[in-house]
């Protein structure tokens, strides 16, 4: 995509890497951030964007999305997110379900979301491989995949697998745990067999490939990151024990409405918490959700992340972060805007293993940048311009250039402004 040189001048810049820069300038060139600060010289060839009164942040990153796999409209034919044929399906890959023409993608972009992890659903103990996408127009998922991003493995605790498989396979939390452990034992054996073959003289036939075991073995080797849907505090502790038993790491718990109850445990084990600001209550394992989850986690030193799991919520992760700041003040935990912006930028980048490339505004990183018309912690703020790899892919002030998916043509009134 054409990027050229862009300079946003005289804006308030939340870098997610240090203190807010007032009246700052950021320069994007060839897809990278080449300068950011209060005293930056604007190159003469730059296209200058006046940021007076406006705010600049890194692109918003969501660790938990089903865009493309549960595409809109939500008809059965578009329901491609949960392979509910077995409690254990590490063999399936979300990228094989993603529909690049899902009209939810341009709406995410219009809200400043630039990178998302697409996960399989939570029906299964092992739901399958996730994929990290850039929110860009493309005919194919291959054109959206974040280059060299690690895959994730979706795992799920608690009520969902229990409910889905009550009549066929497992029906209790102890059944869930037996299911995880059995598969990890299989994966251990598979990894040993293959590692032995790879380390040997490689004569003769290699061992038979097994898609499910390949994914799990890659987790054991540290090459795939575990993203674990888990609501209850005690279940998170169980999952940590299982991870230790088999020697893998959990990158992030997801949903974690009770994460605040074991914040110390998460911090000690360096596990991120991807949570909502205040969504909960809809099922038994979600009833102890509190609006203070984010500040309580932050306060305990956990890598704290606001996630969405929802195509609407994804467009307002900044507002969720603001709710977290607000509730923190009420319960006596002061979270600065400089810390809260990390909940939707560098922290999710780290949970995806991409914090060396995206998530903060520092020289050398990808130029994924959002210009907001107001302070992003205000309810009234909207993303005005959104850059991915330095290319301006969304400009609220220029509807003629707006990304419209194939699906929308003729169906969605064209005067709509996302």
């Amino acid at each position, binding site marked *: 995509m054409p990027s050229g040189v862009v300079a946003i001048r005289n804006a308030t810049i939340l870098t997610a890497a240090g203190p807010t820069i007032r009246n700052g300038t950021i320069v994007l060139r060839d897809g990278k951030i080449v300068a950011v600060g209060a005293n930056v010289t604007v190159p003469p060839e730059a296209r200058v964007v006046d940021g007076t009164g406006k705010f600049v942040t890194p692109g918003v990153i969501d660790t938990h999305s089903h865009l493309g796999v549960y595409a809109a409209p939500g008809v059965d034919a578009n329901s491609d997110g949960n392979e509910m044929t077995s409690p254990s399906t590490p063999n399936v890959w979300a990228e094989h379900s993603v529909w690049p023409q899902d009209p939810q993608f341009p709406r995410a972009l219009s809200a400043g979301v630039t990178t998302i992890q697409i996960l399989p659903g939570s029906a299964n103990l092992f739901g399958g491989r996730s994929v990290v996408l850039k929110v860009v127009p493309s005919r194919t998922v291959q054109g959206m995949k974040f280059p060299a991003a690690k895959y994730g493995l979706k795992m799920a605790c608690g009520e969902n697998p229990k409910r889905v498989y009550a009549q066929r396979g497992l029906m209790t939390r102890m059944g869930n745990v037996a299911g995880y452990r059995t598969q990890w034992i299989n994966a251990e054996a598979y990894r040993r067999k293959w590692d032995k073959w790879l380390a040997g003289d490689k004569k003769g036939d290699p061992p038979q490939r097994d898609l499910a075991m390949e994914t799990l073995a890659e987790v054991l080797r540290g090459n795939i990151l575990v993203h674990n849907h888990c609501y209850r505090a005690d279940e998170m502790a169980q999952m940590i024990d299982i991870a230790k038993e088999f020697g893998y790491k959990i990158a992030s718990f997801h949903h974690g409405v009770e994460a605040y109850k074991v914040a110390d445990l998460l911090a000690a084990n360096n596990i991120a918490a991807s949570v909502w600001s205040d969504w909960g209550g809809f099922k038994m394992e*979600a009833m102890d959700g509190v609006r203070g989850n984010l500040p309580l986690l932050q306060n305990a030193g956990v890598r704290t992340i606001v996630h969405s799991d929802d195509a609407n919520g994804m467009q307002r992760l900044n507002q969720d972060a*603001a709710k977290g700041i607000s509730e923190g003040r009420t319960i006596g935990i002061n979270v600065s805007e400089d810390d809260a912006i990390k909940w939707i930028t560098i922290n999710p980048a780290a949970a995806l293993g991409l914090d060396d490339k995206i998530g903060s505004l520092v020289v050398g990183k990808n130029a994924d940048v959002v210009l907001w018309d107001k302070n992003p912690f205000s309810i009234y703020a909207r993303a005005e311009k959104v850059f991915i790899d330095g290319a301006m892919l969304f400009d609220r002030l220029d509807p003629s250039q707006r990304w419209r998916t194939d699906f929308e043509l003729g169906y969605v009134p064209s005067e709509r402004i*996302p």
Partner: protein
Amino acid sequence: MKKTTNRVWGLGRGVAFGAALVLAMPTAAQSQTIAITGGRVHPVSGPVIENGTVLIQGGKIVSVGTNVVIPAGATRIDATGKWVTPGIVNVATTLGVVEIGAVEETNDTPARGRGDAVTASHKVWEGFNPNSPLIQVTRNDGITTVGVVPGGGLVGGQAAMVDLSDGDLAAMMLQAPIAMTADIGSKGDQVGGTRAEVLQRLRDLLADTREYMRRRADYEKNATRELAARRGDLEALIPVVQGRLPLVIDANRASEIESALNLAKEFSLKIMISGGAEAWMVAPKLAAAKVPVIVGALNNIPLSFAMLGARQENAALLQEAGATVLINGGADGFNARNVRFEAGNAVAFGLSWDAALRAVTLSPAEAFGVADRIGSLQAGREANVVIWSGDPFEPLTRAERVLVRGVDVRRPSRQDELMLRYKVLPPTYRR
């Protein structure tokens, strides 16, 4: 996947419940005289008053303005630098009737009925639990009144409006029923049939309600043909066909909304539209018919083929066309408090700030016939008053005082207790 909220909407006006009787005797707390002074007062019924005073006696507002004489002995609340508004109304919730959606025994909507999707006699408030901990969670955020609304079915049942005051349901009740709910979207599993069939079923129901009214004596003697619903449901629909009780029709596609408008004309119904994803596409017609629209402001996803035109400017475009907009959001009890952020987002997408405040206060009160009780800061209204640290639509703003009928109801909620318990780890489990 995140469990999405049940489809519920909100609803009207109707017969007084036992509330007036109870309220005639103010409690000790309500007998207090309270003067809120120095704040930026938004009466909603009139222009903003800087440095205004709101005087409360016996649980009612007695005076609002800049020259209010404060009686000796009044409890003064200094609201200097604060914003003062009427309590926020969330017109469409399941607060008190659904505790945990997925736990059947705590879920009292929708009605099961007899499988014909008509449960007009269903008075959802009869399942209301005044002891739900979610009430405290909700009112701590400045929400003082909610519509309690049945979901599901072709005709889902009757809704009520309750104040989130202390006391039992009779004490909390503002009015019941405020409306009847119906759903004309073709959703197969719930109502069944084509859009045309669903409309015809509704017409048959309304026509047979008239028939039942005309020939009640014959009906008692079994001297009528079979009617389209049971006696109780026909009985409940009488105020609807008389145009006294609003029928709130859930419809999203523009054509469904037009069908609802035509039906209202055909049967002289008083209706409102809920859902209304594509309402902006027929905004002038809604305005001309004086049909209020209950919309959220957080949906721009073409979630179904009936919602292809969903956009966040919906509320603003309706307002611009002259239609009455009521903003709802956070239908389930756990999220009912978030309606103020829904209003804020509507402002971000073009609705004027004043219109947004009206859409969550006075407009719902007017639409459902309780504007003489709530929705504005005027003499004679219930003292449902919130003192905010700033703009009520901003997440960084806190509801510092929440008065419902003159009583400050801000107390630790179950969530507050959980947070206190786990702020220092490990917890002691002592309190």
